């Protein structure tokens, strides 16, 4: 048989860098651990448990995620809110919906979305500040956002004793962001000619 020389290639997978004999490979260990978690797990946590350098964990996770995507699997590994987690693939949403008990997330109102964006970019921020930016009282919306777990209290302002608010890691999850640095820049939403406005009286 012509392919006898090529033993080991039948699975089509690359061998991981250094599996100990008798121990599961790193990729398998990561898959197994991520299967039992119900919240994102940080690379550094995985590195500690598996006693491997964080960069190796990071690259292996990215490899796995890429492999799942290339193979068109129904699940995906994603880094969201500071950690990795199994997700279903977006294409399968219609089918998965029928099995998920929690059902669809209630949509946020325009008022809630506006308040959420002010908190996201100005955190930690007081309700009064949010009201000043939106031009309208936002206390009720802030309560809703807090109840929904998208926003939480973050201490008080030293001078005014006003309660400050910030976004939660659930907020990052709902937006599919790794961290707050991934928020889109606000600048492009401001007109190019902000400076010109000052020129207008002429």
């Amino acid at each position: 048989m012509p392919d006898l020389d090529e033993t080991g290639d039948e699975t089509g997978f690359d061998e991981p860098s250094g599996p100990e004999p008798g121990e599961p490979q790193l990729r398998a260990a990561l898959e197994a651990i991520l299967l039992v978690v119900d919240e994102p797990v940080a690379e550094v946590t995985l590195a500690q448990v598996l006693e491997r350098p964080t960069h190796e964990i990071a690259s292996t996770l990215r490899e796995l995620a890429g492999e799942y995507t290339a193979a068109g699997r129904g699940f995906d590994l994603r880094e969201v809110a500071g950690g990795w987690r199994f997700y279903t693939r977006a294409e399968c949403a219609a089918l998965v919906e029928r099995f998920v008990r929690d059902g669809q997330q209630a949509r946020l109102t325009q008022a809630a979305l506006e308040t959420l964006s002010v908190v996201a970019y100005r955190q930690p921020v007081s309700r009064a500040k949010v009201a000043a930016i939106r031009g309208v009282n936002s206390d009720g919306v802030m309560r809703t956002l807090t109840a929904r777990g998208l926003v939480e209290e973050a201490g008080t302002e030293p001078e005014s004793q006003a309660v400050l608010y910030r976004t939660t890691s659930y907020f990052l999850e709902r937006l599919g962001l790794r961290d707050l640095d991934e928020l889109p820049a606000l600048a492009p939403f401001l007109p190019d000619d902000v400076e010109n406005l000052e020129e207008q009286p002429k």
Partner: protein
Amino acid sequence: MHLEVFQGPFDLLLGLISKHKLDITEVSLHQVTDEFIAYIRSRGPEWDLDQTSHFLLVAATLLDLKAARLLPTGEVEDEEDLALLEARDLLFARLLQYRAYKEVAKVFSGRMAEEALRYPRLVPMEAAFANLLPELILGIGPEQLARIAMKVFAPKAPPTVSVTHMYQPLASVREQAAILVERLRRAGRATFRSLTSDCAGTYEVVARFLAVLELFREAAVSFEQLEPLGDLYVTWTGATDGDIAVGDDYDETAERRNRPGAGTSGDDAEDGAEDGDAGDA
């Protein structure tokens, strides 16, 4: 006529400005007023005190802008002009800032919708591992549990109208009325421009304008405007002496300021509905 629901006065103002592709400086107060009245009418029985008070804020904002617009453009001659220009620039900045957040809120909404297509794995741990979980640190005693329960069971705090975003009335309408009465009795007729030439700031111009309206209500003055956006002439038609009673409706608000529970807010009405949805899910 399609009318959307606005998220507060800034939103309404932005909406009207963009609809007419107008520069903020060109917004015509009567046009916006007409549209607002149409808006209120279109909602029929839903007519809402909250919407109306929002409009008052828009109107005050516009009045401010108009006052700034009446300034001779080009050079800034004295501190009053400067104050008005600053007030206007501040309003521009606030409107632009608000618009940026409004835009980014759309991005948030889109991302959330897209993200909702991906379901995280949220499955209880396999039985073989569940009993290995480290002993739970409850971290609370019975008293704290009761406290948490009280907080959860507490009726949602009543909606209040925050007025912190409104202008601090530094000028008393009653005092401004007294100044006007004295001047108009002396001059008989004057332009609003000249009547406000000595105002210390926008707030005083606004107070003086409100005082003129109050005097009109008391039938002490009449108005004449020869052309649209032209000078407003104020003519004294009241008694030549004696006290003119001017209501202190405006000045009272300063004292009420810190008392909560004065009304309801539109935001809260929406929230109630939203919470309901979540409960049914």
